[in-house]
């Protein structure tokens, strides 16, 4: 039962990385093929141009070639870091990603962090007070937040805080006058624009994490070691910490697994709050049959998925020694 040799450990890491790489490759390949099998091509929606002319354009971009031929060409370019051109944005795919990805990551990482912290605090509080009035109120609240359709919540926030009360900007990342504001006001302006989209995302995320943390905390709270901790003379806070330390395990795993849903959740928030990030762009790319961009979006998504699952692994190992062996 003593620690294994280091070599076995590092080879497992390598295997895991290779496996991740394979997953990304497989997802990208599937996206590549499916996008091309889907009806239409990048020129289809330009119906004001006669089909014959569009067919000629498709041919000169090689979209009429057999999929394997296109695939090999694409893979060869990808190997040297060339993601190709976005047919919709008429720019290199990497330029588009460089614009949109940070926006999503900013919003999502803030929302995820806030959700995790709030959700864990609320859930842990509830988990030790199952059945009390406070617990029931919070449970009802989080169930409500969780079951409300995402876009509906976003629209509600906009209606209330932007349109009716006028407290906060409805959409966009900055105000119209942003460029002409002094620096301090610019910072405030940016923060103000973050509030509503972040609230929408955080409410949902918090309810999710709170529900999770509550049930794991409730389970942990009934474990005999909580009794032990109390018998040792720990304060209630110390006892709760004992329970929380083990209740952390499923929540932390969840945190990593939530990563891919960042992109999914992004779609509605980005469209309601006019926050043109990765989710919005991916939808545009698919609708416009922007092959290169759509596949790149899938690559980004699958990288987030595998890195999320890697992170879940790492975090789980960090907080739960039982899985570390």
């Amino acid at each position, binding site marked *: 039962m003593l620690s294994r040799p280091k070599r076995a450990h590092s080879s497992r890491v390598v295997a895991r990385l290779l496996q991740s790489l394979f997953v990304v490759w497989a997802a990208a390949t599937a996206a590549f093929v499916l996008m091309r099998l889907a*009806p239409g091509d990048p020129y289809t929606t330009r119906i004001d*141009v006669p089909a014959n002319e569009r067919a000629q354009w498709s041919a*000169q971009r090689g979209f009429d070639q057999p999929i394997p031929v296109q695939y090999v060409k694409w893979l060869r370019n990808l190997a040297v870091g060339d993601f190709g051109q976005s047919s919709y944005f*008429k720019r290199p795919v990497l330029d588009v990603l460089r614009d*949109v990805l940070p926006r999503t990551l900013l919003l999502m990482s803030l929302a995820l962090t806030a959700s995790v912290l709030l959700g864990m605090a609320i859930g842990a509080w509830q988990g030790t007070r199952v059945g009390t009035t406070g617990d029931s109120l919070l449970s009802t609240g989080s169930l409500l937040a969780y079951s409300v359709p995402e876009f509906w919540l976003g629209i509600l926030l906009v209606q209330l805080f932007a349109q009716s009360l006028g*407290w906060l900007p409805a959409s966009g*990342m900055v105000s119209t006058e942003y460029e002409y504001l002094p620096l301090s*006001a610019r910072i405030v302006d940016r923060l103000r624009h973050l509030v509503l989209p972040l609230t929408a995302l955080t409410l949902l995320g918090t309810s999710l994490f709170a529900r999770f943390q509550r049930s794991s905390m409730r389970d942990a709270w009934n474990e005999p070691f909580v009794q032990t901790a109390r018998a040792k003379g720990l304060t209630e806070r110390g006892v709760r910490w004992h329970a929380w330390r083990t209740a952390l395990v499923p929540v932390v795993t969840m945190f990593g697994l939530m990563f891919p849903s960042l992109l999914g959740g992004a779609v509605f928030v980005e469209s309601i709050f006019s926050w043109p990030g990765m989710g919005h762009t991916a939808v545009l790319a698919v609708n416009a049959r922007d092959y290169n961009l759509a596949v790149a979006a899938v690559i980004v998504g699958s990288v987030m998925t595998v890195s999320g699952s890697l992170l879940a692994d790492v975090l789980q190992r960090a907080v739960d020694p039982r899985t570390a062996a």
Partner: protein
Amino acid sequence: MTPLRYSRLLAGALVSTLLLACSPEQQPLDTREEGGTVAIGLSGEPASLLPPLVGSDHEQAIVEVLYDRLADIGPALATVGDAGFTPRLASSWQWAGDSMSISFTLDERARWHDGQPVVADDVKRTFELYTNPLVESSQAALLANIDSVSVSPPRTATFWFKRRSPQQFYDAAYHMFIAPAHLLQDADPAELSLAPLGRSPVGTGRFRFVQWNSGDRIEVIADTTNFRGRAILDRVIYRLFTDVGAAVVSLFTGEIDFFSPLPADDLEKAGKTPSLRVVAYPSLKYQLMLMNVRNPASVEEPHPVLGDLAVRRALSMATNRERVVRAVFDSTAGVARGPTTGLFIPENATLRELPFDVAAARALLDSAGWQIAANDSVRAKNGVRLRIEVLVPAGSPNRDRMAVLLQDQLRAVGAELVLQRLEINTLITRLERANFDAFMHGWNMSPGLVGLRQVWTTGSFGGAGNNYGGYRSPTYDANIDSALSSFDPVVAQRTLIRALQTIIDDAPGIWLAEDGAIAGMHERIEPGVLSATGWWHGLPSWRIPADKRNDRDRIGLTPAR
């Protein structure tokens, strides 16, 4: 001074302190005619601002104020000869004796925004890019009658045509925005979108480009030394939104000053908002339920249901078009009389439309052999049921609502409409394979009326045009051909009316709405007349009276901090 919007926030105290500390001294009242900043919402982001690459309305809206055509079309949208056209980049033009070429002389005062003079070579280079298949310009097909452009330095460009046509001048002057050749020297036509000019345009328009913050805004300011005079507004900030809904909300919150087209659903609210003004203006779009007259399985055969003229006419007559249009568009659209907006129907034309007459529609179907059997509500003839699958583009709420109303109304005469909502690419693919019964269609007309040829003539079936339903009428074809090629305006008008009457009688579609467009704007803006060719057309002459200017207007021409 009205407090900035920032004072309205939760942490109001903190922020207004910050702002007050930083806001400029109260300025003496500005009484100049020029000035003001308008924030315009766009419900999408342009891809490229390079003239030959312009596709969407968002791109058109901005390119049209940054760049110039050789000449601009008049308010009557006449396209025959040069009547009604006004000089833009060209100060004058000369027709050749045989009318096979037109020489444009460029305005000698015209300068690119980088200070370079505009030369004839710019025109030639622009034409070559527009017509190079590698560039994939939407306009290329419209330039097909122009053989070449030759240059007489410094400022005369001559267009050589393949055939004489009434639209020769229109084709040469209207379809292209002239781009700076000196900034496109090294541009590869196959990768034109990579040219830096696409994202930092240098034009000759009365506004000049300032900045493009991806995902956020594009800003232009008045070109104060422009040869046609500076724009009246100081600055236009185009705010880029991810969708219409977000843009409309921002109009209501004052974050933007202008948005068009305003959805019909928001009309009432906009009317009740004191700070907003609602302006209706004509549009070139009409909507219809297109019917496929050919058999999807074998295009040379008539459609088993819709190939029957009696069925098509009966369906049209069974439709209360007025009610459909009112229900969906409220007062923002009219009822289309035929396959065009009313703008292009000659004023003296007396078109006989199919009347709304349910009884007559029933009688027509009865006499054509479409009978209702016992225990059935749908007519049938020789075992073929009067059942029509209607393709509806997903995400087009207006067309969807019209389709639902049609379904309901046509049920009354024993026709069953089955709505099939399809993703746009799938839908277009089915249209282009003529694999459909009916389609909720919308078409944007252009001044040259090429749409009447492109959408309905026999030759436009298949890949050559947009005649998805395979409408086939030698009478229509001949009359349209004559209408578009006759130099005699009387003949052109007469044949146009004949063509329209022919197609109305043949009923290859149920003509529904001719859209009007609605613009919602801040009440301080005076935009003059909004053009059917696009609300942006007169942007350089929009004004904001000095006494109505707000903090946004006072940004002025100063560069960003």
